[in-house]
């Protein structure tokens, strides 16, 4: 089976949001980068499916030249090869992103045959648009299920589980299909040293898509008010316990 997983490079934000001087991006000079968390589980799911069913797994990202790091990370976990849609501008709105991904999938499928499953994260950690996977699915004319915490291939179909109302909603859809997943789908493995070595030799196809004009146009970023309040210190060490219980009584929880 052929499985594609689409990932996004995002910064580790740590404890505080600090904006770049132009307020159009986070200040990332002192931050590391990672694959957006939901998508790490998509990578793990793709690797496991190909381990069990044989075939090929591919990772795709649309991002700056540095996003090669995230493609190598995915390949270190077992993905076979990568597609890098290299961008110059930092912001691509959801429609432009989806259009470029649809073109890239079309080209790859024309050469290597259809993907049985295409994974996306339910939403990216940074821009949180909740839509690229669904826009791509519609353009490809494939069924899509979102927010998955369970994925199981059963013959020509895939059984999908979504958390809902104190339980799980189950969908069964025919393949090929597009699935958006959430963290908790699985516990992603750590890369092994041989895995890292192999990742450096796996193929990466790089191209530079044309950016469609943004219809959702970012004007500026703003750090929300509310940060910077100062906690009332109830004490230090075990001797603070009576003051803590007093506070709990006062607010009616103890």
């Amino acid at each position: 089976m052929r499985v594609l997983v689409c990932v996004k490079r995002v910064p580790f934000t740590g404890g505080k949001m600090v904006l770049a001087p132009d307020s159009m991006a986070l200040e990332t000079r002192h931050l590391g980068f990672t694959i957006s968390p939901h998508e790490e589980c998509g990578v793990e799911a793709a690797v496991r499916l190909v381990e069990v069913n044989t075939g090929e797994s591919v990772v795709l990202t649309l991002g700056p030249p540095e996003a090669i790091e995230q493609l190598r990370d995915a390949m270190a976990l077992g993905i076979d090869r990568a597609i890098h849609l290299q961008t110059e501008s930092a912001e691509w709105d959801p429609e432009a992103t989806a259009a470029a991904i649809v073109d890239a999938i079309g080209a790859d499928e024309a050469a290597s045959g259809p993907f049985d499953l295409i994974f996306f994260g339910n939403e990216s950690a940074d821009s949180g648009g909740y839509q690229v996977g669904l826009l791509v699915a519609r353009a490809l004319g494939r069924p899509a299920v979102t927010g998955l915490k369970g994925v199981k291939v059963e013959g020509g179909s895939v059984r999908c589980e979504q958390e809902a109302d104190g339980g799980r909603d189950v969908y069964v859809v025919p393949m090929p299909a597009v699935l958006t997943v959430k963290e908790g789908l699985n516990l992603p493995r750590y890369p092994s040293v041989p895995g890292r070595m192999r990742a450096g030799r796996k193929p990466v196809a790089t191209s530079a898509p044309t950016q469609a004009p943004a219809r959702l146009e970012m004007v500026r970023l703003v750090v929300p008010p509310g940060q910077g309040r100062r906690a009332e210190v109830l004490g230090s060490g075990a001797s603070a316990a009576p003051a803590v219980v007093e506070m709990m009584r006062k607010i009616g929880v103890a």
Partner: protein
Amino acid sequence: MLLVLVEQTGGVASDPSLQTLTLARSFGEPIHALVIGSAVDLSHHGVAVTHVAVHDELDSFAPDAWAAILGQLADRLGAGAVFAAGTDRGNDVMARVAARMRLPLATNCIAVAPGPPVTLTRQRWGGSLLEEARLHSARALITVAPHSVPIEPARAETRVERFTPQLKEQELVVHVAEHVSTKGGGVSLAEAKVVVSGGRGVGSKEGFAIIEDLAGLLGAAVGCSRVVTSAGWRPHTDQVGQTGTKIAPELYIACGISGATQHMAGCKAAKRILAINSDAEAPIMLNADYAVVGDLKEIVPAISAELRKRK
């Protein structure tokens, strides 16, 4: 004219949908609402017309069918904007509407003003950062971030219109085939009045015994940070955060949690936060109401002992 998708359970509109109606009214009127399945009384929420879509195949949720109905109705009414709550279902259905109608969608907005272009503020990073944006579209598609806008009731003479939508077979392919209940014992994290959470500072899987003990005494749910689930100390269902569960308890007790933005996005709706941390300068101190500085392995058992003493 604005069209708002209203989600419901057994004839009662969800809070995020009522919040969406409030924000939509600030954008323009009249408001038409779409409910799918059974009718909902929206006369206290400023709705001029409630459209009730009734169809044999709609007993279980089918997102493509919902998107088809919303799109057809928006076209028939000539809606200038379509709103839904930024819930899992709301965002899913609206993204499908955007895809079908080839329109741009702005998700998880907290403020919107009519255009052209429509100007809006939306959440990024689970609400830890805001984006001001312009939406260039003759018909704006907007979802509203849950719990970011208070519900403001408004009386209206609401007309109710039932209709049967035309659905194609392929719009019913994706549907809920089955609901599996996973409700176990204990207090649900999302609904708990008190949550006691542990982070990296707890040190190990076994270290959670003192967290569980305190939670038991308070009738609280146990939570944790992302570091803890990544280490395999607790299941992902216990994770509080942007990619875990979003909670809104009366009191949130964060033990050994530094307060990364990923975590705070999940607990910012807590009424009060007590931080127990060895680092008085940890970021969580800037978001907490109360703090105890020191070793959680001494402090947490001391609080439990104090509670037992006073019982």
